[in-house]
Structure formats: structure tokens, C-alpha cells
């Protein structure tokens, strides 16, 4: 028997979707701080995308003309010796503003990529566990137990150290960092999806989809998954913020993005030794992390309120 071209329940689901889309935007707009977060994040994304055009200097170039061995101060602090570096330079005379702009690329890209990976793995495994139940569910959930019982940071550090030691530290490229973070942070998403699927598979529309002869894959992805999206979106948003902090922490400890590539974390690592003489090198990168993470967390909070006020 051929599967019907219009799956049962779609028309109704569409109505429901249109209705909730309207309430979703009105609710999200009511959350003033989430709106502010969206604006800040949009600016941050634009700045990162246009890093090349916006940067006043080459982020990796040393200012041999002005730099005399000590970090140059920001122009607003001392315009006579800043050498045109609006936010000053780091300890080896590289323009701080340009490095911050390029660092934004790294942070946002790592955050987004690792979360995409985490959501893909977590959704597929969680959906399988929740839909099939039984021993598959039991086995997968025990695996998530294991991952959730080992504190993330030490495990990440050991893994990145293995990669660094097996070749050179330069092997800790963008891709490797993303894969390691993504591969370790999917269990939360998997549990969330599983929980939704456990109840969704018992609903009438799932039964109807089964009755008309849809195969499991189609039921999982076409019928059940769209109804489980809300918690995934909220978790994914908050996780982007978490990953940005995790990446900057790894880079700060020297096991993340490797110099000379600028990341907010490794900029802070460089700034640590000059804390007494160059406050700007320590303040601005951290401020960037804080503002970005705060914006994303507020967006996540707003999404949670907008998508499901009962969800906490």
C-alpha cells in the first residue's frame, strides 16, 4: 500500500502551527530583554561577519612603529601614545579591537557548529530511545548517564590534550574543537527529546500515522519531531552560550584555539601576565564573552517563555 501523499493530521498541524507562530512572536516581543539580546547578538554577528572590513588593523600584525615592548594603551586613555589603536594593543603589539572582531568569528562559529552537532546526535539518539523504548532506550540512557557523570571540563581537557600530544598543538584546529565539544555535550538534548517522544508516541496522531502504514523513520521525523522542537530550540540556544564559555575556557588554558589565531579565550590567556600594566587587554575580551553569552541566555529565556510558558 502506497503511503498517502498528504499525511493524516497535517492540515490540523498546519493550523496549529500558524496560530502558535503568531502568539510566538507576540510573546517573544513582550520579553524586552530577549529582544535586547536579539539586537546585541545581531550586532555581534554582523561585526563577526564583517571582521575583515571593520578591522582597522591586521589582527596578527605587530605595530612595529609604535609598540616598544609594552602594550599600548587605548586611545581614550592616552591619545598621545596609543598609536591609533582605539582599544590599545596586546602584550606583543597587536591591535586589540581587530583581534576582538576576529575573535567574535571564532566564538560564534564554534558555538553554533558544536550545538548543531550536539543537536543532530542528541535528537537522533533521543528519538530512537523514546520511540522504540525497551532495551534500546535502556542502553542509550545508561550511556547518557555515563557522560553526565563525568564532569565536562576535565574530560574535554584530557581529550584536547590527547589531540595536542599526538601531533602538535596546531592540530587543535577549529574543526577538532567543535567535534570534541559537540561529541561530549549531546546527552542533555538526547534526554530532552526522549522525554518528549515517550509521551508523543502514545498520542492519537502518532497512532493514526502508524495505522495508515507510515514507516518508523517517517513517523519519527515527519510526525513526532515537529512536535518536540520547542524544548530542543530552547536547550540549543542556551547551549550556544555554554559552548562559547567552554571554548573560551579551553583557549584560556591553552588547549583550545591556538595562537596566533585570535579567540577571546586565548587573548585573556595572554593578558594574564600583564594584568598590572595593561588592564584593557584583560577587560575587553572578557566583556565580549559576557555580553554575548548574556544576550544569548536572555534570548533563550525569552524563547522558553514564548514557546511554552509552562516549561521551566
Amino acid at each position, binding site marked *: 500500500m502506497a503511503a498517502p501523499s498528504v499525511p493524516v493530521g497535517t492540515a490540523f498541524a498546519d493550523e496549529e502551527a500558524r496560530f502558535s507562530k503568531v502568539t510566538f512572536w507576540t510573546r517573544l516581543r513582550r520579553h524586552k530583554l530577549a529582544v535586547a539580546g536579539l539586537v546585541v547578538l545581531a550586532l555581534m554577528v554582523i561585526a563577526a561577519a564583517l571582521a575583515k572590513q571593520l578591522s582597522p588593523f591586521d589582527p596578527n600584525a605587530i605595530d612595529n612603529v609604535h609598540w616598544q615592548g609594552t602594550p599600548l594603551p587605548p586611545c581614550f586613555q592616552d591619545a598621545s601614545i596609543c598609536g591609533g589603536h582605539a582599544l590599545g594593543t596586546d602584550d606583543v603589539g597587536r591591535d586589540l579591537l581587530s583581534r576582538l572582531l576576529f575573535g567574535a568569528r571564532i566564538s560564534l562559529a564554534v558555538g553554533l557548529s558544536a550545538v548543531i552537532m550536539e543537536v543532530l546526535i542528541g535528537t537522533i539518539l533521543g528519538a530512537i530511545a523514546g520511540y522504540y523504548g525497551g532495551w534500546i532506550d535502556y542502553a542509550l540512557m545508561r550511556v547518557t548517564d555515563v557522560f553526565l557523570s563525568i*564532569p565536562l571540563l576535565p574530560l574535554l581537557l*584530557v581529550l584536547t590534550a590527547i589531540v595536542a600530544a599526538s601531533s602538535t598543538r596546531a592540530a587543535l584546529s577549529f574543526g577538532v574543537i567543535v567535534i570534541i565539544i559537540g561529541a561530549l555535550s549531546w546527552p542533555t538534548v538526547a534526554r530532552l527529546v526522549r522525554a518528549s517522544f515517550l509521551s508523543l508516541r502514545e498520542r492519537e496522531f502518532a497512532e493514526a500515522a502508524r495505522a495508515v502504514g507510515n514507516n518508523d523513520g517517517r513517523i519519527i521525523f515527519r510526525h513526532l519531531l515537529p512536535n518536540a522542537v520547542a524544548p530542543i530550540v530552547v536547550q540549543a540556544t542556551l547551549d550556544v552560550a555554554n559552548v562559547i564559555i567552554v571554548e573560551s*575556557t579551553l583557549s584560556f*588554558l591553552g588547549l583550545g584555539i591556538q595562537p596566533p589565531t585570535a579567540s577571546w579565550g586565548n587573548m*585573556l590567556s595572554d593578558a594574564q601576565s600583564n594584568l598590572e600594566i595593561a588592564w584593557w587587554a584583560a577587560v575587553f575580551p572578557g566583556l565580549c564573552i*559576557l555580553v554575548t553569552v548574556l544576550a544569548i541566555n536572555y534570548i533563550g529565556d525569552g524563547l522558553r517563555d514564548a514557546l511554552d510558558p509552562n516549561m521551566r
Partner: protein
Amino acid sequence: MRRTLQAIPLLLAISVILYAILYNMPGGPLAPYLQNPHITAADIARLKHNLGMDQPVPIQYLKWLGHILVGDLGYSTSNSEPVFQALIERLPATLELMGASLFISIGLGVGAGMISAVYRYSVTDYVITTLAFFGQSMPVFWFALMMQLAFAVHGIPLPGGYLIQLPSAGIANSDTFDFGDRLVHLILPATVLSLLGLATFSRFMRSSLLEVLGTDYMRTAAAKGLSFRTILFKHGLKNALIPVVTIIALSLPGLIGGAIITETIFAWPGMGRLFITALNQSDLALLMGYLVLIAFLVVFSNLLADVAYAWLDPRVKYD
């Protein structure tokens, strides 16, 4: 009881994964010899045989597990002492730091969450929830640097010409125990480490207490004519704290991660800093021992939270 039994296979699975990860770690006990031209391939083979490294991996794993079960975590190459001893020596410093942080974050977090819930939508509530958001978004290592910058490098001036300046490194100035000195050294790292927990607990306490305040039994208590204070402390607080207990236990992995960063930045002689040193020197045995120990701590604390939860809330039953 069944929960306790479930923790055993969990710990075994964790140990298999940790072993698999660290087995693939380059370096290892033979690394110093491999570069040495005076050591022949036959010597390496003999060393491997002596260390049991020529046996199948599962056998090596089982032997390792057997040693762990009797508390033998191997020998630390970077510290030249048994791993267990190296970790235990640093444990008090870590416990001092984590304990102080938990004390601050639970005390202030629960208090702030209560105030927030009781005076919902007031200015105080907005200030507290905003600060909590900041706390949750703050990268620990940057907060640590900023605290060092403010309190150690520059100092905070007080009216009257006083300057608050705090030590930014170490656990004490001398080997002899001086309570005041220890306390002064503890302030900055403990503040830094407590921030995340403080923010998390206050947000949870707020929503938990709000939920309880809206329940029927609270309305009943109010209808009986009890004062708000009695209702809040005798009925509300007790019930609102139950879910917070779970959150506190679940925050342990994050606290351990935070302790690694905090100890490294503040040169605190604890296990976290030892872990970073071991990482930089590829001290496999020590890394392994550390991961095993903290995984055990996490599983144990989760178990404890489950038991506490069931004890505090008789409605919850684990079958």
C-alpha cells in the same frame, strides 16, 4: 537500595570509557625511553613486558580495575609519588575551597531566591534576577582575572584612606596555621567559585518558592490565620527547598570544573591545579586517578541526592 546497585554498573561503564580514552593518550610511561638512542628495541620490549603492556587490552583493563578497587591508582611520574597519595594530599585544599564556595552560594543563593519570590516583581526582585543572569553568563576565568585586577593589583579604596587589598595567590603565607591568614587567602577564590552556584540556586529557589506559594496548602495555612512569617518558614521554605537539594547535587560537576580554573588562576594547591600540571606533563596515571575520583564523587553525590529527595518528600518513591 536498588539505586545503590544501579550505581555500580554506572561506575564500571565510566571506568571503561576513561580507560579507553587514556589508553590512547600518547606519551605514557615509556615516552622518556623512546627518544633515548642508548635504549634498544629489546629494552623497550622488556620494559613493556615488565609493565604488563604486552598483554591484551581487556586484560590490562581488568588488572587496572583490580588495582583501583583496592585504592591503588598507580604511580605519578610528574610527582614521583603514588597517585592516591598525591590526590589525597591536595584533597583538603580543594575541599576547603569547594566547601567555602558551596556555603556562600547555598546561603546567599537560597536567601536571594526567597527574597525574590516573596517580593515578586519588585525592584529588589528585578535586581536579583538580573544579577543571577549575569552570574550564569560570567566566564569563571575572566571573573577571576577581574577580581585579581580589582582587589589584588589595584585594591579597592575605602573612605578614610583605607585600601582593601587581598592576596591573589596561594592558600597561606606561611606553613604554620594562621586562621586569619587562611581566611584572607580564601576570600577571592571562594567568591569566584561560588558565583555560578549562587546564580543558579537563587533562580531555582525563586521559581520553586513561587510554585509552593501558589499551592492549596499554603492558602489553607493562610486561611487558618497563621502569620505570613510562619507560613513562609514553616510550610513554604521546607517544601521549596526539596527540588533545590537536587540542583545542588547536580551542580557538583560544574563546581569541580570551576575549581580547576579557580585553583589554576589563584595558585591554589588543590587537586584541580594538580590535574592541570599533570595534563601539561602527560602524567597519565594521575589524570586517570583524578577522573576516576571525581566521577566516583559525582555518582555518589547523585545517589545521596536521590536518597535525600525521597526522605524529604515521601511522595517520591523509587521502585
